[in-house]
């Protein structure tokens, strides 16, 4: 499947045809109540539009997963249209509000990694707007035709040689701790049996890279190091809580890990009664105001989209699909990852350019607005893809587009679509 996917890029299809007569393939995902009915009205009114578009009918725009769009590109589409009911008109009241937030973030992500925004279009077309449907289809077809065939997800020629640092800047370390606070409390809790074990860091073979360790006895607490690092701890805690349905476990956590634990609590993944946190200092959890591309040394918006595409497609092409990013991420908390789903296999499992691209973008999208910016993904990546930049950028974008979350709200902002959300790119 994967090899087939790659050769099915539009460029391959176009190969034999004359460039002058080339026509784009447009795939449209439309809701059943508004846009599908609007297309019907265009038909009954005998309006005309270019014949390159193929409609896929879904109950609601809320059903449309970004994976559909990526799959459509992988399967030879040159452009995609997503269309549904106007805000306030949703047959299901609010499905399109959830959809709109999803699109705002997904579009932001694709733009960040340099995908041409003119290949993906969104519109509201009601059942009464046959004329608008025709205008939208014409507009989208003309725009995509001007862009030419979708080049596929393989890195552009010479993309690696464009002078970008291939790994992100290291995350600034927090204040160097000389002593780990709370050792006495840990020992006391282990002796009394208040906690079954405490998770912390001990010195590793590399001085700058401590290892995770479960301390089960007061003596083992002495092995904990005062140094801090991005070594994954929260994922280990989550796994242990799932494997052992009873008992309280401790964790040594600085502000970043405490934020991750708070988010997992909000997402009902961690029962607060089963976790005891031994606080320590460390790098602050609060995201800085510094743009993500500055922190992580990746191309920012001032770099042309073409070069951003070159950078990220080259970076993603190195991916080995070891999923270390996922395993290290404190908020990647699914029991079964979408990348491991087999019926259907949305994401090619072997490290092909298309599969890699879809995986890395999907992983980042799932962190949109909920990334704790611990840097564990970048840190874990054996081939140095600056993954942390994606989550950090989407956090800032979510804050900009959806405003600060409600007091104490730690769930993904994508869940709280509202009628008055703004998305000026929607036709």
């Amino acid at each position, binding site marked *: 499947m994967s090899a087939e996917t790659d050769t099915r890029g539009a460029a391959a299809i176009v190969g034999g045809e004359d460039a002058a007569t080339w026509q784009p393939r447009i795939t449209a995902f439309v809701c059943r109540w508004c846009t599908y009915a609007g297309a019907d009205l265009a038909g009954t009114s005998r309006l005309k539009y270019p014949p390159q578009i193929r409609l896929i009918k879904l109950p609601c725009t809320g*059903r449309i997963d970004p994976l559909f769009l990526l799959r459509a590109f992988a399967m030879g*589409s040159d452009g995609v249209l997503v269309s549904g009911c106007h805000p306030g008109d949703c047959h299901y009241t609010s499905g399109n509000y*959830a959809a709109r937030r999803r699109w705002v973030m997904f579009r932001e992500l694709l733009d960040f990694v340099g995908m041409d925004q003119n290949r993906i279009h969104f519109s509201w077309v009601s059942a009464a707007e046959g004329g608008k449907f025709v205008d939208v289809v014409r507009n989208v077809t003309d725009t995509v035709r001007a862009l030419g065939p979708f080049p596929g997800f393989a890195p552009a020629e010479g993309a690696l040689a464009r002078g970008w640092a291939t790994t992100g800047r290291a995350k600034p370390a927090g204040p160097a701790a000389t002593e780990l606070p709370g050792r006495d409390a840990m020992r006391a809790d282990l002796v009394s049996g208040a906690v079954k074990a405490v998770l912390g860091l001990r010195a590793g073979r590399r001085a700058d890279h401590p290892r995770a360790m479960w301390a089960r006895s007061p003596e083992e607490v002495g092995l904990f190091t005062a140094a801090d690092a991005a070594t994954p701890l929260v994922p280990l805690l989550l796994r242990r809580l799932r494997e052992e349905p009873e008992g309280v476990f401790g964790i040594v956590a600085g502000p970043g890990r405490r934020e991750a634990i708070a988010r997992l609590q909000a997402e009902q993944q961690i029962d607060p009664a089963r976790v005891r946190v031994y606080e320590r200092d460390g790098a602050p959890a609060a995201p800085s105001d510094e743009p993500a591309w500055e922190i992580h040394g990746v191309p920012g918006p001032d770099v042309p989209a073409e070069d951003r595409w070159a950078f990220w497609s080259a970076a993603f092409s190195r991916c080995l699909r070891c999923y270390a990013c996922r395993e290290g991420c404190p908020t990647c908390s699914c029991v079964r990852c979408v990348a491991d789903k087999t019926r259907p296999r949305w994401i090619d499992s072997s490290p092909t350019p298309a599969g890699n691209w879809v995986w890395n973008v999907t992983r980042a999208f799932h962190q949109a607005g909920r990334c704790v910016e611990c840097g564990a993904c970048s840190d874990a990546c054996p081939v140095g893809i600056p993954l942390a930049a994606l989550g950090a950028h989407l956090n800032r974008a979510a804050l900009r587009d959806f405003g600060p979350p409600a007091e104490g709200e730690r*769930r993904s902002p994508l*869940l709280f679509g509202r009628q008055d959300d703004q998305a000026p790119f929607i036709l």
Partner: protein
Amino acid sequence: MSRIGVFICHCGENIGRTVDCARVAEAAGALPGVVHAVDNKYMCSDPGQNMVRAAIRDLKLDGVVVAACSPAMHEPTFRRATFNEGLNPFRCEMVNVREQCSWVHEDRPAATDKAIDLVRMMVEKVKRNEDLFPIKVPLTRRALVVGGGIAGIQAALDMANAGIPVVMVEKEPSIGGHMSQLSETFPTLDCSQCILTPRMVEVAQHPLITLHTYSEVEKVEGYIGNFRVTIRKKARSVDMAKCTGCGVCQQKCPQKKIPSAFDAGLGHRAAIYIPFPQAVPNKPVIDRERCTHFKTGKCGVCEKVCGPGAVDFEQQDEFVVENVGAAVLATGYQLYDIGDPGAGLRGYPEYGGGKIADVIDGLQFERLASASGPTGGEIRRPSDGKVPQTVVFLQCVGSRDRAKGIEYCSKICCMYTAKHALLYKHKVHEGKAVVFYMDVRAPGKGYDEFVRRAVEQDEVLYLRGKVSRLYEDGGQIVVSGVDTLAGRQMEIRADLVVLATAIRPQTGAARLAQKFGVGYDGHAFYSEAHPKLRPVESAAAGVMLAGACQGPKDIPEAVAQASAAAAKVAVLFSRETLDREPVVARVNETVCAGCFACQEVCPYGAVELNEVRDRQGRLLRRTARVNAGVCNGCGTCVATCPSKSLELAGYTDEQIFAQISALVP
């Protein structure tokens, strides 16, 4: 291997003219899993349907793809044929090659290629279709009516007389709505209250109608057949059980100069008041914002004079939960306010912006002309009480004017303006009545005759044109406009000006619609499910529409729509249980992590908590579970789930993935 039959319809010439149906059939026949592919002149005809049935029977098909018109047209037809041949109807799908190919494209090869692509995609989907079974849900045979105007009253009485218990919610202290304010009704000039008040009393006395006045719908849960509606009964400050409606309280109340909403601001009422003499229920309510006791803690006269001791200053808002199976929304209209229309609309500062006392709107004129009104039915102008000698009526104020934000026609103004002019002439014989109009629209039984009567018998002067400005001068109002038929500027000195202002939905109409999941247009008029074939149903199953909340309407139309809505409810209630489309979400509980993102985005609250326990009863995991009776099948949860642990029956990931994967051959 699947055994799929593909049937391509020519729709006479409609499809066949632009799509090469034989080539589509040939291409479909070559697809893996397709055992039968044919084209036919009319698939929806009996012989066409019989072809499908014969193929299912003889070739043992396990899937049917009909490439024809829109599924909105004939999907039920072909699914029924499939079902009648013993195959699950959800194994039949339609490809829309008429509305999406032949009618919108001219290039025959391109349209044919597109039809082939669409057929291939649908074949791949149908291969993955499963048997689905309609979900049977129980039914509460009880209906809610929101709004106690003439539409709500008619719907409630029709349903109650058919034996359906009805709960009526009215936000004002009395039912009756705008019709109770009218003087006489066009075109017969019968007295509005004389025909309405017996109906109001009937509602109050009907054993099957529960009336909640001074109440609003707070919350709606559930779905067709099983709504749970929370009603806020606002504190009336009067104990309805004790009050006898004697009216002493409102006579003794020292606050008597409060503008009466019933008299459209032209008359006065007390702080404790019965809105009008025929009110139902005929019991008072205290206006807490105006009552001296509530403002300063003093007074309390009403409490002292009340014999039965019904006045209760401590009363609180009360919440009542009613279970109903269907609802009729009949929330009516309000008039455009030229001073402050709100909702982003521009007012009419050029007409005085509501500040000129003798520039009034249609409802105010109704009160002046009404025998029960503040002037006892004499036409006297509000400023000085004099009988106006010249009255100018302006039509289309706010309506049909894009610059003012409303492009629609308010429909009833032509008729009521003619009625107003005629009533004025009947009461002030020597007076002069002038109407400025854009077009006179009088399409109704006896309507045009009525307008002609105003013009010919009662000598009302009709001038075609717009008025640019109204201003006060020496106790009169100068009407400065243009007579476009004569092509001249005109100025008329009037004693009273009556504006036929636009009909708008009630404030809060959109909020109520959102509670019921009913769609509405840009002006917040409620949207019907189909403009022609389902004009009294909303797209929200089990919620019907009646009266001006759906669009401007006169009384007979509102009544007709209300009766139709009542009939729709009766049809719904004629069944034992309800069948719902089995397009619902389900959770794969073995991989669900229980993050409940799905619960957050579900518009229906259909996601519930499921606890996975071991044999000792210890809690192992929490997962989501979808209540199929509550789920409406939008699939928002499915796309939200990060691990894709939800599926939507009929639109599963596998089906959509297969469709996308079949985009190119």
